[in-house]
């Protein structure tokens, strides 16, 4: 029995092609992912009565666009979620809530990204005057999305705990160990710690290999009731628990808990609702937009105590194939490509179904998925019963 009002299952996962070049039409990417997810689930567009998506802007089609392109007869529940949510998983969290509440029966959720929307490097032009909260950020060269913020977070982490950069390098190296086993991943060359430590600085001490890799691509997921799921194609994966959190003083820069933001609250809430515990995790899909985010989440989830990641992770092999804490088994956003949370959800589902081929974690029954971080935390526990 889950903590939700109605039992909810994830029944379909879909992907578009992922690419590192070109400017494919976002509607075409999202539609391809949506059709692939519906086919995987064994449902048709006539079954869909809810659509939820997360967007920055025009890189992802609106829910109504998707409904029209798919030929969905009508939507009983829908939302376009702007980027204050827990990254792309926001769409899936909303879909779970809508199905659990009875607002809809079968929800399609997706995240579509383009390199243009995901790339934060380069020289942007910008406003000459800034207002609101930006008054206290932009004049100081706080630019490039949150690159400088992550430089500050990484620096503080190393100072607070007296840890070396290698702790973050374990996450970067691990991503490629898994992506080598994932034909869909865009970055499959293996990395050494030396590669990591010699990669260029983006906002010192944040290195380019601390950052996820922008791609053109879309991911989609179909969510419905456990009752319906019993009649569909695959053995259903159940949503055991879900949680959001912002943490106190909700903010990226001035939050009370600078190193973790809401991750601790989110994890505590998640485990408080779950039928399993952190010790039961078979496979972990942990947000890796930047490596300091992943390290913070792993500690928040309770794999180890605060500041203990470096000692806990050792040489990093426990995170990799054959390890006791398989992490980001598709390569994550660092290596599979930046798919914003839904990529992690889909990989968790494929692992729990036992469909991951060379990278399959044997007999995976419990998966944890986290998305976003700091004031925008979201997480799910998924189980195969």
């Amino acid at each position, binding site marked *: 029995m889950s903590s939700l009002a109605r039992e909810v299952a994830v029944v379909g996962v879909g992907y578009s092609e992922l690419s590192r070049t070109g400017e494919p039409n976002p509607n075409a990417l999202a539609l391809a992912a949506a059709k692939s997810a519906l086919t995987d689930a064994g449902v048709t567009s006539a079954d869909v009565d809810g659509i939820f998506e997360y967007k920055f802007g025009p890189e992802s089609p609106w829910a109504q666009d998707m409904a029209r392109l798919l030929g969905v007869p009508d939507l009983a529940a829908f939302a376009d979620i702007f980027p204050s949510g827990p990254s792309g998983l926001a769409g899936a969290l909303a879909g779970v809530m809508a199905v659990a509440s009875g607002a809809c029966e079968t929800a399609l959720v997706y995240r579509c990204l383009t390199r243009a929307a995901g790339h934060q490097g380069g020289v*942007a032009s*910008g406003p000459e005057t800034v207002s609101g909260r930006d008054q206290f950020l932009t*004049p100081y060269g706080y630019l490039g999305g949150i*690159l*400088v913020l992550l430089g500050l977070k990484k620096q503080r982490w190393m100072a607070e705990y007296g840890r070396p950069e290698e702790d973050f390098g374990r996450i970067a190296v691990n991503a490629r160990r898994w992506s080598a086993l994932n034909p869909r991943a865009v970055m499959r060359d293996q990395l050494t710690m030396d590669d990591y430590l010699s990669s260029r600085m983006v906002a010192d001490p944040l290195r380019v290999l601390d950052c996820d890799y922008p791609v053109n691509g879309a991911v989609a997921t179909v969510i419905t009731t456990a009752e319906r799921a019993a009649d569909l194609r695959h053995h259903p994966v159940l949503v055991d628990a879900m949680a959001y959190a912002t943490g106190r003083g909700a903010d990226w820069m001035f939050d009370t808990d600078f190193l973790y933001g809401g991750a601790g609250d989110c994890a505590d809430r998640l485990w408080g609702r779950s039928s399993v515990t952190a010790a039961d995790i078979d496979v972990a899909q942990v947000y890796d937009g930047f490596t300091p985010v992943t390290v913070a989440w792993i500690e928040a989830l309770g794999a180890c105590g605060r500041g203990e990641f470096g000692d806990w992770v050792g040489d990093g092999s426990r995170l990799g194939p054959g390890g006791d804490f398989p992490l980001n088994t598709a390569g994550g956003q660092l290596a599979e490509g930046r798919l914003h949370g839904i990529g992690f959800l889909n990989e968790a589902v494929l692992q729990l179904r036992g469909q991951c081929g060379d990278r399959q974690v044997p007999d995976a029954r419990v998966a944890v998925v986290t998305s976003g971080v700091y004031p925008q935390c979201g997480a799910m526990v998924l189980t195969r019963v």
Partner: protein
Amino acid sequence: MTQMDVRVHADPRPVPAPDDVSRFYWEAAANHRLVLQRCRSCHKMQYPPEICCVHCQAEDFDAAETTGRGVIYSYSVVNRPLHAGFVDALPYVVALVELDEQPELRVLTNLVDVPPGTPLSCGLPVEVVFEERGSVTLPQFRLLGITS
């Protein structure tokens, strides 16, 4: 030519547009004072300015002068341009400074006047200085004991 034109050509970095909530802060900076909101109910200070106290939600503040002293909480060195306005400013240091007045009271700033080769670390003491950028004055911080 207007003053704005002079500013744009002289320094392309963005400047704040003060509003009803922030005006006291920038006006104090123009007088070379670092002044923050201090709640009349719980007496805590906060930054950036808000419409109410984020600690106790009261709505009345005093404008409290600070010593302008603190320590580096964290810092990041930007060596490549992220914005056209900062191309000529490279490299620059973005720092979070924790002020002496109150634990966890942090201000985002640049670390200015850093002598080349000076090793930086979290915890180093800093003091406020003021930068004139066009018609606006920005509080900035430098390492304590550095004179320029």
